[in-house]
């Protein structure tokens, strides 16, 4: 028997061909790896050198982000290198003449590219993680997050590899390979995303990520990398966690691998140098490109059909222009790829087929829209609901008997807030999901009353949308039965769990339905457990901090807070935070889950011991600084206003400023007018010898920071001089004035409140 007999295993994979392919890619592989590692280490060291603040490192935004370069550039390049022989006749002849089965060559080469991708990812992740660990005091890593990200990058590399291999198999030139590969990789998801956005934007009850599982733009991980990280068109961040996207991408890769293998096996050598391996494929590529352009017609016409059909006539010329552009592009593509005018003209003749394709697309979208409005689960079929709260203020509104109705005030429909107006003091750190609200949204509410309210609300809302397709967000509808206007004041994203599936809808509802749902949520055991079961200070993955305090002080305050908050319900905690003026807080980071979260734990009257402890340490740290600055200010000038200015600059370390420009337009001018009038009324009469006669015992030095959006102030007890200081991270203009201690501060606030948002000053 000849030594050259090919064994069965060689029918699918040839180890030597695989090793050969690995060798051929070693230069690009090693250069990429070394460059990435060096760049990563240098950037980590550079970014952390001399830095004092803590950084919470997330894989997709840290140095690990460089791995996207492997997905988008390196892997396609490797595939094009290995499969380059398919673009030349002699190369194709050579490889097609090999004794091994064609699929053996195909799988061996694909495996080689994937192997190199894996080597680069593993080595790079290791080196980068070690580099971060060297600066671990400044950087908090989530190993789960990093592992998930790296694994997803590898899956993405596999998909990109097989897509480009498929692209090479069905075409015969580098240009057409790139076009075909890009079409295969991006276009399906791009088209689905466009459809998703269109349906969601006209739907009112859907959002782009909850039309259907497979319709989510983040299903396809490489496409998510392109849209999220490269082009910043969307933000989904599925790549940072294991989930459906990982599985979907992997299955898609397997499908494309098998299709690519089949196409490679059937590919004749004559395809080399041509645009496509067959006329059918060339036709499909051409039509896809044309269809993509005519999607603008669909994007324009779909809302017209959903809402108002009268726009069509006025825009016929635009639609015709789009179609002509599509036809021209098809002509040009055919001319470039086939290099014959005859084929290009034939392509032009096929372009009218795009019109029925667009019509069918619009029909399909209308069908989906109709289905979503009719697919309303009955309360009896719903096992649980989950609620995402968008606006924290709504919690206060709904748990404090906020008024239900809008009234007509000054020709504007608004709510008569009366004395109940409050201001949102809850600060979101937008970089990470909020610890509290993330957990609130995961609670599966099984309260039947809440489920009934949610189902009823959805049913009502869908009915109104169907009756009135132009029902705008946040508006009202007229109920003829009761002859009243019903306002949708509140909107929540609600997940309806039915059987083994979940239905996610944005539901606008009345205050009465919203109250039932929110109160049920906040009063649930799970909701209260969120604050009653805060992680221990030393727990792995937990980090608590405050920029003004030491680690030991933070630990003591946090532990005190943990104990005190166990006696506070979630409702009371949130209400206190929202209505309180204090911005004293601890920052909690939690990276136990693959998606890290954070929140600010507010120290309020709900937890007086923790708050007092905070102020004690804060004052201890700043006592000398306060005294020194006051002393400096007192010695600086005789001029009253200049004194205040100097005092403010010295006192607050230039983190706040006093707007002295009386000619500034708009709101600053109003602020100054107010300040002057209050100063005139409440300020201590300026003594002739101001410095000698100034008695801090009798005055407030009121540093009240005001802007149009919020009002901050922090009470500073513990000194002989009652000084109200500013929160040091504010940076806009403010009004400062000297007040007689006998002056009625409430009156002051009330006078300020006209036209401004204000809060009550906390006076011990």
């Amino acid at each position, binding site marked *: 028997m000849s030594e*050259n007999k090919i064994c069965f295993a060689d029918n699918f994979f040839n180890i*030597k061909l695989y*090793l050969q392919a690995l060798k051929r890619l070693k230069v690009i592989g090693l250069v990429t790896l070394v460059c990435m590692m060096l760049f990563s280490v240098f950037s980590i060291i550079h970014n952390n050198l001399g830095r004092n603040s803590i950084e919470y490192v997330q894989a997709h935004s840290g140095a690990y982000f460089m791995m996207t370069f492997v997905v988008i550039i390196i892997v396609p390049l490797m595939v094009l290198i290995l499969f*380059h022989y398919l673009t030349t006749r*002699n*190369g194709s002849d*050579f490889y097609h*003449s090999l*004794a*091994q089965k064609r699929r053996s060559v195909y799988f061996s080469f694909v495996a080689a590219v994937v192997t190199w991708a894996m080597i680069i990812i593993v080595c790079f992740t290791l080196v980068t993680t070690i580099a971060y660990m060297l600066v671990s005091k400044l950087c908090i890593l989530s190993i789960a997050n990093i592992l998930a990200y790296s694994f997803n990058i590898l899956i993405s590399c596999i998909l990109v590899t097989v897509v480009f291999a498929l692209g090479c198999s069905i075409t015969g030139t580098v240009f057409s390979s790139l076009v075909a590969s890009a079409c295969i990789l991006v276009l399906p998801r791009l088209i689905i995303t466009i459809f998703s956005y269109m349906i969601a934007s006209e739907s009112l009850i859907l959002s782009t990520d909850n039309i259907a599982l497979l319709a989510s733009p983040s299903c396809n991980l490489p496409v998510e990398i392109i849209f999220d990280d490269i082009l910043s068109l969307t933000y989904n961040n599925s790549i940072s966690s294991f989930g459906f996207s990982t599985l979907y991408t992997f299955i898609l890769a397997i499908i494309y691998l098998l299709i690519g293998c089949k196409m490679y096996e059937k590919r004749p050598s004559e395809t080399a140098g041509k645009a496509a391996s067959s006329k059918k494929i060339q036709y499909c590529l051409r039509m896809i490109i044309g269809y993509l352009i005519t999607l603008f017609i669909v994007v324009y016409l779909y809302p017209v059909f959903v809402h108002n059909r009268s726009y069509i006539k006025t825009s016929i010329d635009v639609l015709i222009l789009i179609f002509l552009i599509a036809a021209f592009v098809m002509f040009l593509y055919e001319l470039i790829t086939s290099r014959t005018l005859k084929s290009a003209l034939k392509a032009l003749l096929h372009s009218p087929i795009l019109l029925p394709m667009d019509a069918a697309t619009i029909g399909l979208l209308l069908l989906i829209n109709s289905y979503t409005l009719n697919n309303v689960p009955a309360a009896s079929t719903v096992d649980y609901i989950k609620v995402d709260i968008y606006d924290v203020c709504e919690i206060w509104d709904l748990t404090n008997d906020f008024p239900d109705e809008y009234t007509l005030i000054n020709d504007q429909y608004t709510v008569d807030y009366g004395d109940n107006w409050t201001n949102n003091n809850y600060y979101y750190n937008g970089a990470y999901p909020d610890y509290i609200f993330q957990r609130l949204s995961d609670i599966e509410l099984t309260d039947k009353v809440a489920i009934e309210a949610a189902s009823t609300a959805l049913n009502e809302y869908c009915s109104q949308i169907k009756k009135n397709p132009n029902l705008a967000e946040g508006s009202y509808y007229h109920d003829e039965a009761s002859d009243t206007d019903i306002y949708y004041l509140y909107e929540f994203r609600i997940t309806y769990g039915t059987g083994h599936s979940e239905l996610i809808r944005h539901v606008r509802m009345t205050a009465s339905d919203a109250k039932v749902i929110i109160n049920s949520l906040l009063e649930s055991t799970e909701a209260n457990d969120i604050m009653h079961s805060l992680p221990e200070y030393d727990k792995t993955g937990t980090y608590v901090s405050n920029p003004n305090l030491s680690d030991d002080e933070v630990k003591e305050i946090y532990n005190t807070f943990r104990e005190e908050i166990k006696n506070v319900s979630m409702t009371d905690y949130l209400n206190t935070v929202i209505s309180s003026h204090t911005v004293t807080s601890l920052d909690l980071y939690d990276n136990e889950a693959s998606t890290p979260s954070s929140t600010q734990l507010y120290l309020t009257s709900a937890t007086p011991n923790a708050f007092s402890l905070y102020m004690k340490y804060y004052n201890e740290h700043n006592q000398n600084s306060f005294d020194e600055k006051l002393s400096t200010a007192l010695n600086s000038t005789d001029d009253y206003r200049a004194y205040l200015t100097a005092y403010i600059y010295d006192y607050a370390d230039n983190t706040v400023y006093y707007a002295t420009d009386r000619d500034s337009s708009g709101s600053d001018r109003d602020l100054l007018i107010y300040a002057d009038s209050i100063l005139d009324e409440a300020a201590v009469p300026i003594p002739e010898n101001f410095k000698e006669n100034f008695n801090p015992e009798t005055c407030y030095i009121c540093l009240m920071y005001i802007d149009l959006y919020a009002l901050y102030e922090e009470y500073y007890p513990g000194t002989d001089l009652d000084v109200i200081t500013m929160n040091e991270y504010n940076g806009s203009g403010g009004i400062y004035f000297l007040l007689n201690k006998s002056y009625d501060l409430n009156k002051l606030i009330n006078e300020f409140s006209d036209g401004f948002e204000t809060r009550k000053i906390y006076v011990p």
Partner: protein
Amino acid sequence: MVYVPDELYFIPGATINKMSDLYRSIYPAFDIDRCHYLAETLKLDEWKNISTFSKGMKRQVSTILALSAKTDYLFFDETFDGFDPVIRNFVKGLICQDVLERNATAIITSHSLRELEDVCDKLALLHKGGLILQSDIENLKTSHFKVQIAFPYDYDETLFSDIEHIRFKKSGSVSSMIIKGNIDETEVLLKAKNPVICDILPLTLEEVFSYEMETLEYNFDAVLSEMEVENNE
């Protein structure tokens, strides 16, 4: 099976060593020593980039790689075109060696039939994608032969109606014919007609090819004659 194409292919930037590495991965019986030996014999630098070689040298590289693969079947497509006569004979010798020692089968295509005569056992003629003739070389030579014959009397082609002939050309009293058939039997028939001259000459493969093609009207003699007439005019 190993294939040496007409248009050669090498991995971009490859050297003989790199290519032999590739062949070793493809062909389990690849003989690296033989490859080194042949490269050395033909004075080919194994570390030099093949793209810098001349056309003939590239063809030599391709051939020695194929010969080193030690496969059961070797396909050579227009391989000898780029070789000088010395190399050509050397390569022919190597192929014959493989055939004899390893019972390998070599399939060689060429437009120069003269080269194949002394190397091949069998011949097949392809025309427009189809096989028009397939035979042993020896058989072909003995079954196709040329006869030059003259008679003391007047005659024409009908005299030879009992003999299968492809071509008949009479110039004066001497005729030449291409005859298909048994040479001995034909000789007897011809001698029975009492010729003055009767020479039986073997045909070269090129002549066999030309005459077979002529029957398929694949011939440009008429065109040449017309051009000649026009020139004379």
